[in-house]
């Protein structure tokens, strides 16, 4: 029944999916945190930039962003991201696009976490003479992160599935292999089921583990 799987490297395709997910997750966590810091910061220009970035980027379809990195940045402006091998360039472009998109959601999740920290905490820290960066990094963000593990897990699961959009610019991940197999094997339903199962295998443990972590680290108030 599953003999159509022969001759295809499913592991390699899903490994690329995992790599895309992990690299984009790390990147968007960093960039998203910076954006959140800008949005709650005291400098109007930075607040404006953060707000504009989040509201523009999260309202553009991901396909458009990913296609722009390739057709716009790469094909038209010649950006190669330090590699003249097409596959590597495409992979990096996809990670770039995914970071740009996902960080908007990370930023908003984190900002809601910052709002859960009682304002007295920040005021007390200010009263002790800490400056903005110190208040944020030493007092507010550690508590904020602990309360948004759940929402961030949501973003991570969405990101895992969003990596399939990278197939649009030819990154050899799971969705691209699926297209290839459907083209060759004429087994639409079974092939789709196999790939759906693969993604569930990736995302279900993510959700369970992070759900457990979220309970473990939540700040009891």
């Amino acid at each position, binding site marked *: 029944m599953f003999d159509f799987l022969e001759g295809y490297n499913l592991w390699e395709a899903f490994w690329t999916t995992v790599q895309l997910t992990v690299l984009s997750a790390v990147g968007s966590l960093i960039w998203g945190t910076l954006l959140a810091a800008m949005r709650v910061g005291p400098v109007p220009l930075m607040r404006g930039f953060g707000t504009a970035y989040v509201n523009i980027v999260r309202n553009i379809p991901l396909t458009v962003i990913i*296609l722009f990195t390739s057709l716009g940045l790469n*094909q038209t402006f010649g950006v190669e991201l330090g590699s003249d091998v*097409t596959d590597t360039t*495409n992979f990096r472009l996809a990670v770039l696009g995914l970071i740009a998109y996902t960080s908007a959601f990370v930023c908003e999740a984190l900002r809601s976490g910052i709002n859960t920290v009682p304002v007295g905490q920040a005021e007390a820290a200010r009263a002790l003479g800490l400056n903005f960066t110190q208040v944020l990094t030493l007092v507010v963000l550690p508590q904020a992160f602990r309360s948004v593990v759940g929402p961030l897990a949501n973003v991570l699961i969405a990101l895992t599935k969003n990596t399939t959009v990278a197939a*649009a610019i030819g990154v050899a991940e799971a969705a691209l292999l*699926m*297209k290839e197999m*459907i*083209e060759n094997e*004429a087994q639409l339903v079974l092939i789709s089921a196999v790939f759906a199962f693969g993604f569930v295998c990736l995302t279900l443990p993510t959700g369970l583990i992070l759900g457990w972590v979220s309970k473990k680290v939540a700040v009891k108030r």
Partner: protein
Amino acid sequence: MKLRRVTAASAAVLALAVAATACGSDDKDDSSSSSSGGGDKKITIGIKFDQPGIGQKTPDGYTGFDVDVATYVAKQLGYDEDQIQWKEAKSADRETMLQRGDVDFIAASYSINDERAAKVDFAGPYLLAHQDVLVRADDKDIKSPEDLNSKKLCSVAGSTSAQNVKDKLAPKAQLQQYQTYSQCLTGLQSGAIDALTTDDSILAGYASQASFKGKFKLGGFKMTNENYGIGVKKGSDLKAKIDTALEKMVSDKSWDKAVEANFGPAGYENEPAPKIGNVVK
């Protein structure tokens, strides 16, 4: 209590929706199954909507070689042009559409191969195409398929042409894959991509588009044989009728006219019309 009422209401809405869609699909089934009788009934034909020269949906209707062939065949089966319902047949959906009976036949750059022939029946072939490359008109480096090995190639993700390049024709070439061939053309124009590869008939269609005239040329390498057939449901009696219609199309020269009209401007040297049932491996 209130919650239950809401649940009941939404269940009712759901049931209605299901019933409505069920009715809808029933209607469709009726029209397509009874359409084989002819007369004032409709015939549903699957074509490509996005391939210039082959099958393209334009504001003024449908154009392309597949469309011309399908129109001719439909006429021979007893349907006028206004009795044809065109339906988009994406590459991945073609077998399923025929098996479900969504369409009566499919003429959508449908190359005959063993896997597909096991699922559906093919009438024809009506065109022998070859995998080829499209390069910039001023390109002088690419003279043979071997020259592609150091070049950047573009094709559609997952397509047979893309897989051929990776596995056989030019394993060392760098392959950029996109969703559609039009996206490849951006890079081909700017020089980020050196060649676009797929069936020569499709490439000729792109090169013949008004906005690209004179910018691209075909390599003329004939790297594979693609026999375009008309797909029908397995065991359908349409196969024999379509074969007869295709034979007539070739003998009364309508076939040559259709080729000239759709591929002519690209300087595409087409193969002579293939004999029915003669699949060139």
